[in-house]
């Protein structure tokens, strides 16, 4: 389990990058859901935590590939491969990411 931050530190609409190998991006959607995915876009080296969050999709800040935070699957070019998704748990106001990637990413 990787400690991300407290819930208070990640308001809806915000994201945080957790450095590491691989780096993970955690998103708090406007609807209040928390998602964690690989931070690096599968198309080209860019941090998805810097991307634009819209609903449960994040748009890559460089080339606007759109990833579904629920599945990691890109919905448009130029990305073709999914990013991995990670389970997120909240315990006593702290957000944790389960560090082992889900294999059933699709």
């Amino acid at each position, binding site marked *: 389990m990787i400690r991300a931050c407290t819930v208070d530190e990640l308001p809806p609409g915000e994201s945080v990058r957790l450095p590491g190998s691989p780096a993970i991006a955690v998103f708090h959607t406007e609807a209040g859901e928390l998602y964690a995915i690989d931070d690096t876009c599968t198309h080209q080296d860019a941090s998805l935590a810097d991307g634009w969050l819209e609903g449960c999709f994040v748009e890559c800040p*460089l*080339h*606007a590939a759109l990833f579904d935070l629920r599945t990691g699957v890109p919905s448009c070019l130029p990305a073709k491969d999914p990013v991995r998704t990670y389970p997120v748990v909240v315990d006593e106001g702290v957000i944790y990411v389960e560090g082992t990637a889900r294999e059933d990413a699709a």
Partner: protein
Amino acid sequence: MKRVAVVGASLAGVRAAQELRAQGYDGGIVLIGEERHLPYDRPPLSKAFLAGAASQASLELLDAGDLASLALDFRLGVRATALEPAARRVLLSDGGSVHADGVVIATGGRARTLPGFEGAHTLRTLDDALALRAALVPGVRVVIVGAGFIGAEVASTCRSLGLDVTVLEALDAPLAPALGPRLAAVCARLHADHGTDLRCGVRVEGLSEAGVRLADGSLVPADVVVTGVGMTPATEWLAGSGLKVGNGVHVDAGLVTELPQVVAVGDVAHYHVDGVGRRHEHWTNASEQAPVAVANLLAGRTERTYTPSGYVWSDQYSGTIQLAGHPRPDDTLSFVDGDPSSSSFVAVWQRDGATVGVFALNNAKLFNRLRRPLRRPVGV
């Protein structure tokens, strides 16, 4: 509509084919491509692919699943030579023809060449990139004519390979007409910071055995010469079709030609808004035009119009440059984060108090926040 011919198998053509399916068209799609390769993505050709860091397979725009679901009838390695609207036919360079009820023109263009530079490299196609890559062996001196995006990216890649690079630019600063003097100076600085010899205000005359001859009589020694001086839209095959051409295929604001069953997308599309014609030679434009053009093609008339985002990016050296909007030289430029000497900054152009353009160097997050309002058409 039973059959659509998409002429041009690069990004714009592929996106059009994808949009046809996405918008419910279930007839035949013939995808005609002059190159023998399956559709591929071009941006890496001047960067990772040229450096040898990305494989040919990684460029492919369509994977096996896409190919199966799109059910495209490929005609690769042949060029469209004529469009006969009355006969609803596209003629091909191999003597064959394709009968189609609808046509998407996505023929892009060819790299412009300079007189006196026969034999110099250009970079537009995969084969161009393979040829240039093979020439970039250790120790060669590279001279690039043109400091636009392609020239700058090739210079950057060559420097990453440890090669000596000189860039010759006719303007006083790279991209000055598009960016203005302050941001053009930033682009010049990226070259200088990374050991590229950028020479601006230079007039080139031609190629010789020893290098590039300049108008002042001097010689810039070179083993490999690359010209990056823009492109020419590929419209010659439309002669006699009745379509209006001239710096591209002329289309209305919905990318439809005078014929409702013929639309154009990508670099070749010269579209008109309020009587003003524009053409964009960028990845995002090719991608974003496809849904509009296809919707109008399927509707049989112009129902949707295209609003360009003006989004362009370029990766040069350690920098990612991002530009959105359509700034004019008389717009006011201001720096909202950092300044032109920083390694990361964001600047905006304003006109009558409204932001009309955003430029960033290595600051994608703020760039995207600021460019968001630009995406909505004026007045909506």
